[in-house]
């Protein structure tokens, strides 16, 4: 199915807290057998990763980062899992694609169960569900209240939110909300031009390729997670 209701009580698996998460299950190559601990942390998240195209293209570019795709639809998640297993098997000699994986999850509800404060460097929102109807707007992945949770898991002063969509209305909505949020600041076109993730995001995802075939427009907006302002007492 194409959609999933983010508000329903799915039978999801999620850790009780970030420290309860066993990342070695997803990234066994990065587990230090002598200490039992992970050598690297997840620092890049693709929220609603779909068929995983972005993960696969990001993988060789960021060998030091663990990259996680989160997807709410079961079948799509299973497909991406199989795809990554196949890629890992075909690249055993150079240990390729060990730094990417996917899990089924509802990022709108359980993101803080997975990530600690300031853990992420980058978050991608590629071609999210537009939820056209006015009364469904709360189901959109970018809302003022959810942005506070994304700001929590992003690194202060450094983390970046990447958004891309072919729906202009949704683009304007995301820009409006991100601009209005006190913890985000838009990055300019010059920055976009020089950032390799923007290029990958534009071309890597299956949705992006579909839009390309149809010669549709792609709207991009990137925002930096700025440092917290002084706390008012």
């Amino acid at each position: 199915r194409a959609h999933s209701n983010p508000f329903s009580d799915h039978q999801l698996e999620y850790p009780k807290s970030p420290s309860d998460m066993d990342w070695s299950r997803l990234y066994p190559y990065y587990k230090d057998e002598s200490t039992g601990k992970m050598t690297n942390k997840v620092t890049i998240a693709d929220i609603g990763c779909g068929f995983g195209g972005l993960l696969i293209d990001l993988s060789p570019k960021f060998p030091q980062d663990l990259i996680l795709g989160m997807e709410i639809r079961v079948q799509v998640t299973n497909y991406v899992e199989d795809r990554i297993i196949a890629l890992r098997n075909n690249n055993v000699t150079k240990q390729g694609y060990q730094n990417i994986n996917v899990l089924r999850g509802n990022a709108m509800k359980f993101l803080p169960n997975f990530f600690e404060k300031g853990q992420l460097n980058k978050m991608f929102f590629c071609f999210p569900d537009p939820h056209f109807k006015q009364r469904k707007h709360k189901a959109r992945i970018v809302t003022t209240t959810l942005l506070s949770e994304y700001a929590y898991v992003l690194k202060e002063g450094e983390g970046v939110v990447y958004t891309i969509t072919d729906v202009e209305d949704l683009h304007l909505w995301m820009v409006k909300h991100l601009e209005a949020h006190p913890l985000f600041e838009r990055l300019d076109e010059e920055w976009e031009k020089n950032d390799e993730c923007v290029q990958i995001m534009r071309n890597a995802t299956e949705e992006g390729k579909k839009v390309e075939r149809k010669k549709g427009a792609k709207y991009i907006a990137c925002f930096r997670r700025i440092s917290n302002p002084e706390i008012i007492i």
Partner: protein
Amino acid sequence: MSIIHPFQSSVSTNDGTLVFTVVKNTILAFRCNPGSWNYSLAGSWVDTLDRTNLIKEKVIKEQQRQLAENAAAAATKKSKSTDGEPVVRSVAKVPTPGTGAPPIYSIVRNLLLSRDNKMLFACADSDKSILVLKIDTNNKENCLTLVKRQPYPKRPNAIATTEDNEKVIMVDKFGDAFEMIINEEPKDKINEFEPILGHVSMLTDVMMKKDPESGKQFIITSDRDEHIKVSHYPQCFIIDKWLFGHEEFVSTLCDFLWDPRLLVSAGGDNYIFLWDWISGKSLFKFDYSELIQPYLTDANLAPARFQNETNDIVEYAVSKVVSFANLPYIAFFVEATKALVILKINKDDYSLSLFQIIELPCNLISLFANTTQDELLITLDNRESSEKDFIKFVAFNPEQNKFVINEDKGKSIDKFITDKLKNNENVTISSKDDVYPLYNIANLKKHGEAFS
């Protein structure tokens, strides 16, 4: 024959002289004359708003709108599938409003007194509003006057007041928290209200706290997805932390006057959590599942559609936890049981241990702690014992070193209530089944998509 409806909740002023209770859609105020247990009726307020017809109109209007939308879509749009072939567009189904909709209860809930005891706040289910009532003790006719009624787009679930007493913070069923300035005219355009923070889950409780060392203020919110979120206030967009540990929904939060760092939470799992909310540490996790077993009855069985073949799945949840101003104890009850459980907090290591269980004559419905008097007010589902057991008062007795029910005080208020209210149509019902929903907490349990 009519009987008086059980009291859904109650609170009392700091000095204990005024007791406010909710019965059906009525708020009643009783005055307890100091030095005696003579009660008098000090005031009342009835929520007369009936939205049944309004809602019906709205439903029919929405149906018409959807039908028109379908007709318009069928007339104009021709869709193509991804490979360019035209497809026959299926017409969206429009539900027909039935007659079987559940009754709408104009419940008043979440009684909360302002810190100076001059205002009473409540939430009205009828129009999803926050009520502000002024308490005028000089008015001998009726001490309660409604001064403000602010409706919201979604149903308020819990309220709290800010440190400066100027605002009420409300959290709703949809997961948003709003701020309302008390001394301001009600606002319309409720759909344009901007939340101060939100969860993607039903919010169940809210608490305003201050870190005594840094002076920073925080808002703590709990939800149906096990989350307790600590955000800065008024900069609610900066989240400070989450308190992780619950395995089911969180229904109730409680703080302590004698140690502002402490917080207790409970809900649909087997644990009472004691937190240091400033450091984010879980100090103790008390498993109450065994001690509650003897008090569980058929009323705690899971609803039929979630039952197994042997019909023995029980589902219970803590409805309310309260603390005392000066005593290192907490009191709580599990919904639809007769047990009031009191735990002791060991101040040396912050462990919780069972101190006492008081069995009441009927199921508890609500629990309130008067922090100045260190007295508990308990309302009971007294439909079986009719004419008595409306409210019980429980206090610590240092000589016996235990908590005891003040039977005389309870009896005198029961007698007063029966004499005064049995002919009052606002608070009576014709049969025991004609009751407002008294047990709402266990329903918050999630059963996953297998059932949805």
